[in-house]
């Protein structure tokens, strides 16, 4: 296996691409809301991106849990966890960016100390920490276990982030999918956005996982050589 692509992923990739295009088109053809003008069109991508960040971290937690669980422990789950975490960090960053871009016209500033925004920023740093743990040199399985625990505990921030809008009186939007809160076309655009972003996430995830697997294979191939060398130390000490 030289490429990390496969028919499956090509299909997903293609679908994601189409979805994103559609999303953009729909987004740009959304009616202008009088108070926000074209900025309201960000609704097509921003929530979707944020939601994918959640999804990614949930998957990380899942992978971590399955890795920690003795009977299901397998390198695969570690790969799932790390791949999803990295993609998730990217999505979180994008959430912060798109959010800020949206915030400038809406609130007049790039950033406000709104609970939702803060918890999102927190989420971002949390998973930077997760990646930092992974960079501490250690045997693969050791690294995996460490990371798994961190990845599991970190997940608490996701539901918190989701419910902030209810727990605090936030500037930030609440559940816009709740019936009657939003004009139909906005909802459709949001849903398409969700779909496209999720596909994109899946595509990235699979590729990142395969890279991880290739690396592991490389190591295991190196191992036989290493063992041979080690045994050679006996004759030439």
């Amino acid at each position: 296996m030289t490429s990390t692509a496969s028919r499956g992923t090509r299909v997903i990739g293609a679908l994601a691409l189409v979805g994103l295009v559609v999303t953009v088109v729909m987004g740009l053809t959304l009616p202008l809301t009088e108070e926000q003008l074209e900025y309201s069109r960000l609704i097509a991508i921003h929530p979707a991106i944020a939601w994918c960040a959640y999804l990614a971290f949930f998957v990380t937690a899942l992978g971590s849990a399955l890795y920690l669980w003795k009977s299901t422990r397998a390198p695969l789950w570690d790969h799932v966890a790390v791949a999803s975490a990295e993609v998730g960090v990217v999505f979180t960053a994008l959430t912060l960016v798109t959010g800020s871009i949206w915030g400038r016209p809406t609130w007049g500033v790039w950033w406000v100390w709104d609970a939702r925004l803060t918890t999102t920023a927190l989420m971002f740093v949390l998973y930077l920490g997760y990646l930092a743990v992974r960079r501490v040199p250690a045997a693969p399985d050791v690294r995996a276990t460490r990371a798994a625990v961190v990845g599991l505990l970190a997940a608490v921030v996701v539901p918190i982030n989701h419910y902030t809008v209810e727990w605090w009186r936030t500037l930030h939007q609440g559940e816009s999918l709740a019936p009657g809160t939003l004009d139909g076309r906005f909802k459709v655009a949001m849903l398409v956005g969700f779909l496209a972003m999720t596909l994109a996430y899946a595509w990235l995830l699979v590729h990142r996982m395969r890279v991880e697997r290739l690396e592991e294979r490389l190591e295991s191939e190196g191992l036989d050589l290493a063992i041979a060398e080690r045994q050679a130390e006996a004759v030439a000490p």
Partner: protein
Amino acid sequence: MWRDAMVIAGRDLRIERRSRVVTNQVLPFALLVIVLFAFALDPDRGVLDRAAAGLFWLAVLFSALLAIQRSFAIEATDEARDGLRLSGLDPAGIFLGKALAVAAQLVVLEVVLTAGIAVLYGSELRGPLLLAATALLATIGLAAAGTIYGVLAAGLRVRETLLPLLVLPVVAPVLLASTRAWEAGLQGVPGEGWSWLRILGVFAVTYVAVGIAAFGTLLEDA
């Protein structure tokens, strides 16, 4: 499990009683922090009285970090982890024991700090019951979460730097909830405060549960 926990907690507290590190170093540090905050926020603009709760819990947080680092510094040497593995003690017991010892020290710390903000920031402690309950639950959460990451970082040469990075964000929600609860408590409107207690309770339970469940794995395979 509980017996082992007692063995560990007893030993840690005895070491503390002898070396007095928490009382002589962490405690002054905590006080120092709230003084520094007062400095940095130049009080004449009347920020302090409003920010008191937040600053209090920030100070607790940072001192908690030190207390945890200390708790694993006494685990000696780079082979700390091997030592614990060979100690023959039940991992869950070790976790509970160390968390217990840390919690005990934190409680002392918080009492003094409370006096501190009362004096320095002139905060009045209305709703003491709420304050106490909050502090208790928050302390359990902090100690548990800290101990989990403490053992993860123990024996790594980067532990001084890694630990804060790991602990701070996961306990941030605790910080948050307890801050809100204390604001309510300090302003004497406990009503909304109690709702935050529930969240704190959830955290405390979660972290303790995770600790009991995962500590063995962490000790063994990490």
